[in-house]
């Protein structure tokens, strides 16, 4: 009742009104676009499912990177803008190992072992980069205003990109293709590439591993304690420097593994710049899910992946917009803004502002 009342008084707010109009327009566009597409029926159900699954796989990669953002954010309230580069460091370095394993034939003789070795190697490389980053660039800045570490992170992002370009060159490299991942699984009329199942499953395993680590293990509890209150955590005897370093390390390890998993999934395009766009996407995913929240990062990543895969064909093509796939980022970011309008704290985030007041 009071809701209705509000509209009739002088409380009418242009901001609310505009936002409402915007919401309605966006929702309308989505509905109309989807309706048009689906009623035309150009794309079959099986194709939609395939797109969905491809989106999930892509989303798993985003999610794994997003976890690193979220971990660091959770503990330091800092956007580690260079996290995409941590991903790149692992992926780029391991491409040489993958080539070597392929040359010796080991990759196809013992694919499981080989992939495991690659994941470990990439994880360790990325972890080292992440730890160095924290130690050299971020630790001296603890407690300074939020913009300062953000700028440092941007600087670190450039620095890492061009360092790796200097080390490994500017050309593109590609992961070799692993035979056992080349096939596909036929489920009814739907054909699911094995590699996508691999990506999704290994991402899930890593995510649950992380979830267990944070929720159940001693160090995980310490991480949560540090993220809530660093000073009190120290009073518990927790070495917060070490916990923060550990957090960066874990985030780095996940990013590195994401690099290899990504290499199995999208083997091409390995170069020094490869971390930038996934980095921004993963950051978006983390915010979408509610930054600082681990399940949120997973959800955000998967959501973003699926949106990107399905959105252009479903909505934009339906609205008759040419070059729909070009605009998939527009869809992704519009969805982000839409989600944030409805839930300013992200899908699974907590309301910070209310607590504060």
């Amino acid at each position, binding site marked *: 009742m*009071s809701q209705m*009342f*509000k509209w009739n*008084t002088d*409380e009418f*707010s242009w901001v609310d009104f505009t936002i409402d109009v915007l919401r309605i327009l966006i929702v309308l566009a989505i509905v109309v676009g989807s309706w048009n597409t689906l009623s035309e029926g150009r794309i079959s159900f099986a194709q939609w499912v395939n797109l969905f699954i491809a989106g999930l796989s892509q989303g798993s990669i985003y999610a794994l990177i997003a976890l690193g953002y979220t971990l660091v954010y959770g503990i330091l309230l800092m956007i580690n803008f260079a996290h995409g580069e941590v991903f790149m460091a692992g992926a780029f370095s391991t491409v040489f190992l993958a080539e070597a394993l392929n040359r010796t034939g080991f990759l196809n003789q013992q694919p499981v072992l080989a992939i495991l070795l690659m994941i470990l190697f990439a994880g360790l490389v990325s972890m080292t980069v992440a730890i160095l980053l924290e130690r050299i660039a971020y630790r001296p800045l603890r407690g300074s205003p939020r913009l300062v570490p953000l700028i440092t992170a941007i600087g670190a992002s450039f620095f890492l990109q061009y360092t790796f370009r200097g080390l490994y060159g500017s050309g593109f490299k590609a992961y070799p293709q692993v035979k056992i991942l080349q096939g596909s699984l036929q489920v009814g009329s739907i054909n699911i590439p094995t590699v996508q199942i691999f990506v999704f499953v290994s991402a899930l395993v890593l995510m649950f591993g992380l979830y267990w680590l944070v929720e159940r293990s001693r160090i995980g509890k310490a991480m949560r304690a540090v993220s809530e209150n660093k000073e009190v955590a120290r009073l518990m005897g927790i070495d917060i420097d070490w916990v923060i370093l550990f957090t960066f390390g874990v985030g780095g390890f996940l990013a590195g593994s994401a690099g290899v998993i990504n290499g199995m999934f999208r083997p091409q395009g390995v170069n020094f710049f490869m971390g930038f766009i996934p980095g921004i996407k993963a950051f978006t995913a983390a915010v979408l899910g509610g930054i600082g929240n681990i399940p949120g990062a997973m959800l955000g990543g998967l959501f973003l992946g699926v949106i990107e895969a399905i959105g252009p064909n479903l909505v934009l093509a339906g609205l008759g917009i040419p070059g729909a796939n070009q605009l998939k980022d527009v869809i992704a970011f519009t969805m982000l803004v839409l989600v944030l309008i409805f839930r300013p704290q992200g899908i699974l985030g907590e309301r910070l502002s*209310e607590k504060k*007041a």
Partner: protein
Amino acid sequence: MAEKPKRQQNKILVATGMTKRFSGLVAVDNLDFYIPEGSIASIIGPNGAGKTTFFNCITGFYQIDEGELIFDGNRIDGRSPDQITRSGIARTFQNIRLFNNMSAIENIMVGQEPHLKSTWLGSILGLPSTRREDDDTEERGRELLQFVGLEGKGDMISKNLSYGDQRRLEIGRALASKPKLILLDEPTAGMNPRETIETTGFIRRLRDELGITVVLIEHDMRVVMDISEHITVLDYGRKIAEGLPQEIQNNPDVIEAYLGRGAAASAGKNLAS
């Protein structure tokens, strides 16, 4: 400037059936209460009883889920905090929240917002009316600083002020909006007994000299019993008692849930002395 006591019977703020929930948790539960105009009223209750939530509901920081709030004859529920401030309610915060990197005078000048009219265009063009208003604002700000006892400290960055001065500045900032009702959240927190007495006197002056109705949240029972004319006791978001200090002190529910035997006795003693 003092208001006549006869208006004391008017209820400046009335809430009926006020309810606020946080994701299932009921913070304020179907609350009915009123504040008599021109009085000094207190809200007391155990930690987590919903006192600060209650303030936040009145000042529009939270939108209440049910019920209505009437201030000075107008409904204010559903309004935004700035509109409520404009209608004449000002507040301070439990843990002082000044604009830390602004000077004391700037803090007070921001406090005068509800009465300012100049626009950004006027400022850019340097219109005479804008300049005049800026000068007036500053002058009134200096007067207010004097009133709260911060004369000569106007150009200090507020975070460099001492704790007591910060409390005073916060009240001064609240007064700058010329409120009819001022909400003070634990104004004596962190003060020693001597400072507390000074502050109590100052709160009385607010009412007596400026005619502002005062609502306090306070933990120090001596302060509460000493200056309040009307007390509301909250527990788990519900009102468990309301009335004059004497009544509250002897209310068995209040003693049970909040005061405890000893405190009730000692507070009573103090008031008597």
